[in-house]
């Protein structure tokens, strides 16, 4: 089964070419990452897949159905948590259910059932400003999950967190994924993060973004932080870094600013 199938997407803003013939496939229950430098148009791609923007050309199939320019099927999560400061955590995560016309009491009941797995238990009535950064991101992910638990797009969700919190979040996210088996499309510029979490990585070039290489990650699951030091991981990381340097040399550019190695 194909959860997300994107073929031949092109997009320009005026003279600025952002996406150049992008094709991406996310199989059902797979975790697929897009790894590329900041500002390469990854977020534009997400806006196109979520239906907020129209591509100049190309097809977007979600579970085999055409969803070009149609919102309301898959939601995405940002580096910013984008929680509403004036709503409690519980009411924040209920928003997608409310938008699906589910009455508030039922929505709350459904949402509360997930608070434990998402590490938010006891904070139902707290306001977002009372949560730590990691908890806020987990609440944002729960909101995304309650919108569409089968397919999720995550746009650098842990980019603003400190390293220790981020590595905890990685393990937690893998846990959630093995428990609920969603199909995930994940944007990152962190190589370790991409290899650790993914089944497949699309390596993007600088703008206009093209797919430089598709890399399969066959490290067996469940994975723990030990994976980070395994030889298989190191070999993959070396391959990715080489490809990125190659890319940087082709463009005569320093990649150091954009990628965290």
């Amino acid at each position, binding site marked *: 089964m194909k959860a997300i199938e994107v073929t031949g997407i092109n997009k320009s803003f005026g003279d600025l070419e952002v996406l150049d013939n992008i094709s991406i496939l996310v199989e059902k229950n797979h975790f697929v990452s897009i790894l590329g430098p900041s500002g390469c148009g990854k977020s534009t791609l997400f806006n196109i897949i979520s239906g*907020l923007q129209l591509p100049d050309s190309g097809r977007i199939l979600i579970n085999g159905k055409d969803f070009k320019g149609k919102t309301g099927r898959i939601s995405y999560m940002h580096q910013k948590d984008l929680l509403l400061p004036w709503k409690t955590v519980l009411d924040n995560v209920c928003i997608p259910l409310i938008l699906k016309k589910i009455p508030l009491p039922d929505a709350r009941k459904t949402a509360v059932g997930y608070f434990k797995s998402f590490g938010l238990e006891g904070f139902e009535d707290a306001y977002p400003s009372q949560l730590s950064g990691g908890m806020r991101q987990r609440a944002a992910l729960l909101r995304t999950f309650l919108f569409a638990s089968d397919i999720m797009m995550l746009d650098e969700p842990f980019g603003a967190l400190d390293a220790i919190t981020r590595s905890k979040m990685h393990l937690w996210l893998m846990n959630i994924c093995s428990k609920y088996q969603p199909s995930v499309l994940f944007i990152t510029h962190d190589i370790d993060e991409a290899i650790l979490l993914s089944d497949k990585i699309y390596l993007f070039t600088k703008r206009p973004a093209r797919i430089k290489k598709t890399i399969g990650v066959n490290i067996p699951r469940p994975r723990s932080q030990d994976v980070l030091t395994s030889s298989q991981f190191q070999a993959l990381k070396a391959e990715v870094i080489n490809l990125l340097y190659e890319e940087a040399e082709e463009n005569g550019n320093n990649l150091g600013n954009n990628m965290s190695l």
Partner: protein
Amino acid sequence: MRKKISPNNLVPISFILILIMFWELSTIIWKIPGYILPAPSGIIKTLFSAYSLMHPHIIATLKEAFIGFSLAIILSFITAFIMDSIPLVKKAIYPLIITSQTIPIISVAPLIIIWFGYGILPKILIALLVCFFPILISLLDGLASTDDELINLLKSMGANKIFIIKNVKLPSALPYLFSGLKISASYSIMGAIIGEWVGAKEGLGYFMILSQKSFYIDRVFSAIVVITILSLLIFKIVCILERQLMPWQFIKENDH
């Protein structure tokens, strides 16, 4: 309401008390006559003895201020939402609104009296004019401050315009709105008084002019005290409303 005199309040309160005592003493020491500067004790005494005389005027002023303030809120909401949703309208009107703020209201007040007579209407209009702009400007800034990414996210979840206004635009504009409301709240009484000052048959402004012309300076001061109390009261009501409507603004951050 938990109302204790905290060390924070102690400093300003004692300072005011010292000032009042100094005032009281200086009227005694330098034998200042009551028709020039009445002593605070005399003002308080007049406040009670002349209260029945002032009462209908207080009601009249409050009524004008309240109606003007309420109309200003309604009108500024409508204007702000139109200006926020149609950028062309905002571009056209915004500079005009800012410029109109530079016209002293006291110079316009006589015109309004000429156009609308000596009744309650011109006072309401002046209070409205004074209150309208701070609310409108703060509301406009508030509506413009909303996070576009947040709106995009909710749109991607299928939210419509009304949902976004109710759940995002309005709540995020509330803190801005309330800073405008606080300014306007105290202005509303002032606006009504200015209207009465220029020409009226009742109200505290009218009462002050009458008292002044009859050299009842203590009554003028009593009226000033009443005006101050009324303005502070309205200000306080707005502050209480603010707390009620925005509980998330008054929680301690990261207290887990």
